[in-house]
Every structure is written in structure tokens, then in C-alpha cells.
């Protein structure tokens, strides 16, 4: 049991560091999801099923989802700004 716990702690350290070193924001949610999954298994190994359940719903569903949606919104805003700059304001929307 101690060996499994130690290995899981090591995995947590490695995957946590990997999330920090993933510089591209669009790959970070995937890394964070994996990190959350490893944390969940770690909590299970340390006999905290309640925390593991909270961790799996927040760490692998809630957090990556919110990051992805925020990224999608930012990308769309940038796209919108770009097209707004391309055409003069007085012309108005074409639809």
C-alpha cells in the first residue's frame, strides 16, 4: 500500500509539473484533466473516497470544461474584433 501511495504521489508531482510546462492554453485543459484523474486515484489510495468523488467531478469535468469554454469565448471575441477592424464601422453588418 505504501508503495502504491508513493508511486501515486510521484505521478501527481510529474503530471502537475507537466501541466505547468504545457505552454499552449488549448492543451492545458487535457493535462489538467489527467492531473485531476491521478489526484482522484491518489485520494482513493489514501482512503478518502468522498474527496476522490469531489475531485473527479471538479477536476476532470468542471475545471477543464470551464477553461475550454473560456478559451472558446476568448477566441471568438478575438475573431470578432478582427472582422470588425477589417470593415469600416459605418458600413454596418451585411446580414
Amino acid at each position, binding site marked *: 500500500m505504501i508503495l502504491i501511495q508513493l508511486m501515486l504521489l510521484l505521478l501527481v508531482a510529474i503530471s502537475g509539473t507537466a501541466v505547468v510546462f504545457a505552454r499552449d492554453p488549448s492543451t492545458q485543459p487535457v493535462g489538467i484533466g489527467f492531473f485531476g484523474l491521478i489526484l482522484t486515484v491518489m485520494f482513493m489510495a489514501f482512503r478518502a473516497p468522498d474527496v476522490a*468523488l*469531489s475531485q473527479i467531478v*471538479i477536476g476532470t*469535468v468542471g475545471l477543464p470544461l470551464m477553461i475550454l*469554454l473560456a478559451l472558446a*469565448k476568448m477566441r*471568438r471575441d478575438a475573431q*470578432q474584433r478582427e472582422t470588425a477592424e477589417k470593415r469600416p464601422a459605418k458600413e454596418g453588418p*451585411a*446580414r
Partner: protein
Amino acid sequence: MNSSMRMVLFFFGAAGIALLLVCAFVRLPGPQNLRSRYLKRINDGAVPERNATDAVTAVNFDYRGFDTVGEEFILFVSVMGSMVLLRQASEKRDQPLPDAITPARDVPASDAVRLWILMMVAPKILFGIYIVSHGQLTPGGGFQGGVILASSALIIYVGENFEVFKKILSHPLIETAEGAGAGLFVLIGMIAWFWGRPFLTNTLPLGQTNELTSAGTIPLISLATGLEVTAGFLLLLFAFLQETLTASSE
């Protein structure tokens, strides 16, 4: 300041923090010889005093119920805040969008994905309800079950599109559910006042240990929390998806 200078500064900072952490952690008691009075109190008290077999939920919704009211309202306020922010942005552009923006989702999901999701939705909802309603018996409770319930609506969006997501959910109803969930928690806490006891005291009949109706107010609070968390997450999804998708696909 160049990058090597920054690395040197970071090294000293990180080394200091590492030293402090090591000093703190070597003094921690191991999991085998924890001798906390609080731990003993909860472990000895949860089943005989509250008929709740899951001590963690008993702490969350009963012994430390007041803290959970605070957490619940943190979620409530942050959902409201994000909705206000996102709504402000969507009012700014009432005029139709320039057509240069490509529709975000004109390729439907594959049949395999749609079939899998169709099979997953009902068991997922059932599992969410199970986690919410068995909070006092097994690990789980309103928070975890609420997110599971909300994510079963999310996978419908993944398999279909936002139109379907909008069709099966009513926005005013979710808004009401979120308010009702948060309010119910406080109202359940006030039940104790009828007996002249402090807020959130577990004054309801405790029932039989291991039964769904055991542990007095704990399952009720779990249900209220489940309602609030489900509705809160759905509202967030609604606001984000509406903001990022409808305008570009309409």
C-alpha cells in the same frame, strides 16, 4: 531583469519554500497515529448521534453545516457573477454578427458518439440522483451528485448541439431551481428554531441507520445542495454556450 537573473531569484525563493515545507512536514503525524480530538469526536459520534454512516457528509451538512452554507453561497454568487459578466457582453452586440465568422458547429457528431451518449444519459442521471440521495450513507452528497447531474445535460450538448440543449432545459426553471436550492438549505437550517435550538441543529427524527431516510436533516440538505449545484452548473453552461455558440450559428 534578464532571464538568468530571474532564475537565480526563483531558485532562492523555491529553495526557501522547499525548506519550510520539509520542516513543516517532518513534524506531521502519520496517518496511523493521528490523535486529533476532533477526529475521535466525529468517528465516535457520527453513527450513534446522527445515524449517518458517512462521517464526511455528517461533518459537511451537520456538524459543520454553517460552513457549508457559506460554501453554497460562494457557488451561488460566483454563478451569478459569471452570468452578469457574460450577459453584459451579449447585450453589447445586439446586431447580427459579421458573416466572416464561421459557424462553430455545422458538422454533426458521428453516429457512434450519438448512440453512446444516448445510452449514457439515463444511467448518468440515475447515478447522479443516487449520489445525491445516498449522501448520508455512502461517499457522495449534494455537491458531487449535482455536478454529475449537470454533466448529463452537457453530454447531450456534446452529442447533439446547443439547440437541443436549449430545447430540453428551461432557463427560467433552472434559475428558479438554483435560487430554491440555496434558499431551501437555509430554510432547513431554520427548522431547528421551532424547537428553540440553534440554526442548523439536526432536530428532525433520525430514523433507522442505513436507511435512505436516516440522519434527520442531512439527506434534505443534501437534496437542496444537489438542486443548487445542478442548476448552478447548468446556468454556467447555458451562459457560456450561448455566448460562444449561438451568435455564430444563428
